[in-house]
């Protein structure tokens, strides 16, 4: 036995933790159910669009996969946000978090391992999504857009941000149920505000003093903030408003913003974890 400690590179620790995280995520049914739901949602949206086109008598849709792909990736991102929150909260609740820290693990390597593992799991689902959309293209006759591979690959960045968001929210909770509840409420507010904004914009305005106008302004203000804060907004900005329509600058800004936001969230999560401690229930 030698008293000089062996050095374990941080990258190795992250890789080992990430491998376990990815294996745990891909070993359950949840990820495959989420992928199926994402594809079903995408096909349903495509059918809605086709029906609308049929009613309107328009023959050529400009980009039939834009909204379906947005929704499919959003469903997957939501699933991985929940996975990140559940996995992080479960580590603390079950006591495995403290046991990990008996080894060469610190806050940064632990969080990076979790993030990388779940991004890898997300990446594994992307070929399934692509295959599903390819099947839809064959059946519907609508050709897949050439930007699809780029959309899928670049979606890894906002997906990482969503995972980081789930981890950050779960660091503060001691129970799995609380983590899911907190994430659910926050995601509902973020996605709900965007949806409400879209709906209100479609409401006709009868006169200049209509209360709908004030509501529009309020929701527009909220969405302007969420546009830069919500991880779900980044997914839409990079894929739907960026790559899908060839707006590469928008996509690039979105990618840079998402990367910075992910780093900030991980730094906050590490500081919070350090402050709370790793034992069950926190200090």
């Amino acid at each position, binding site marked *: *036995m030698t008293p000089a*400690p062996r050095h*374990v590179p941080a990258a190795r620790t992250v890789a080992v*933790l990430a491998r376990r995280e990815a294996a745990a995520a891909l070993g359950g049914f949840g990820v495959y159910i989420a992928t199926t739901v994402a594809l079903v949602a995408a096909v349903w949206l495509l059918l809605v669009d086709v029906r609308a086109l049929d009613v309107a008598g328009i023959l050529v849709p400009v980009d039939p996969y834009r909204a379906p792909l947005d929704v499919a990736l959003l469903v997957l991102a939501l699933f991985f946000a929940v996975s990140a929150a559940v996995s992080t909260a479960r580590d603390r609740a079950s006591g495995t978090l403290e046991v990990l820290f*008996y*080894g*060469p693990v610190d806050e940064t390597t632990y969080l990076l391992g979790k993030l990388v593992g779940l991004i890898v799991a997300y990446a594994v689902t992307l070929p399934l999504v692509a295959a599903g959309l390819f099947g839809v293209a064959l059946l519907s006759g609508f050709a897949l857009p050439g930007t699809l591979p780029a959309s899928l690959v670049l979606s890894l960045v906002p997906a990482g941000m969503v995972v980081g968001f789930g981890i950050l929210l779960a660091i503060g909770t001691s129970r799995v149920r609380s983590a899911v509840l907190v994430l659910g409420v926050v995601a509902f507010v973020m996605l709900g505000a965007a949806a409400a904004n879209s709906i209100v914009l479609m409401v006709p305005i009868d006169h200049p003093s209509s209360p709908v106008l004030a509501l529009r302004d309020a929701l527009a203000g909220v969405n302007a903030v969420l546009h830069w804060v919500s991880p779900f907004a980044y997914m839409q900005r990079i894929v739907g408003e960026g790559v899908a329509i060839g707006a590469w600058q928008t996509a690039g800004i979105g990618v840079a913003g998402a990367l910075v936001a992910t780093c900030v969230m991980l730094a906050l999560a590490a500081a919070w974890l350090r402050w709370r401690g790793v034992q069950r229930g926190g200090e």
Partner: protein
Amino acid sequence: MIEIDRLTRRFGARTAVDGLTLRVAPGEVYGFLGANGAGKTTTMRMMLGILASDAGTIRVCGRLVRRGDRDGRMLVGAVGEVQHFYPEMTCQAYLKFFADLFDVPQPVQRVAEVLADVGLADRARDRAVDLSKGLQQKLGLARALLHDPPVLLLDEPVSGLDPHGIREVRELICRERDKGRLVFFSSHVLAEVAQVADRVGIMNRGRLVYENTVAGALAGHGTLEAAFVAVTGGNVRQAELVA
């Protein structure tokens, strides 16, 4: 070697560990005793570098323990009072995961060795969460031994074990001591401590109030339990009290 010098930790207004100073030599088994809430687990968490101290220092094998010091943890194998496992993992997979984490050379072979050492070779393919508490305790010990650390920190290693389990853990501690490993363990099972430890220290309300060899404690009080009750009840010869 463990060297703790004037270690202090407070939680709000409560002082969990108050100016603790002690030394433990390599190859020594040190029984760390105290009532619930006396500060034993807090001390051990600080020794592991997962909890920061408010004052004082800890050195393990000469290396200053700092919170978050990943390399420092390579010197210590730790087992908590309750074992926690990933539900999907077998005993073998669990140990392989930690062997990879500790970057143990030839991890598969090492996992087989430690499983055999703790008598779990025939349970390698069973899920860790399905084992009895005693066997889970052994699996925790196997994990702590994986990277061959010079120091073992065991928090209540025989808590909840049946007599067979207690004897097996005792034998394992003695075996590791004979290999030159320093074993620092806390326990409420005083008869067990008397059989295994070379020295004991008794904590009371965050302070180390008594320290002696086991032989010395037995000579002075008859049993460790009598020593413990006398010390923590305030009825002890002044000369035996730790300053």
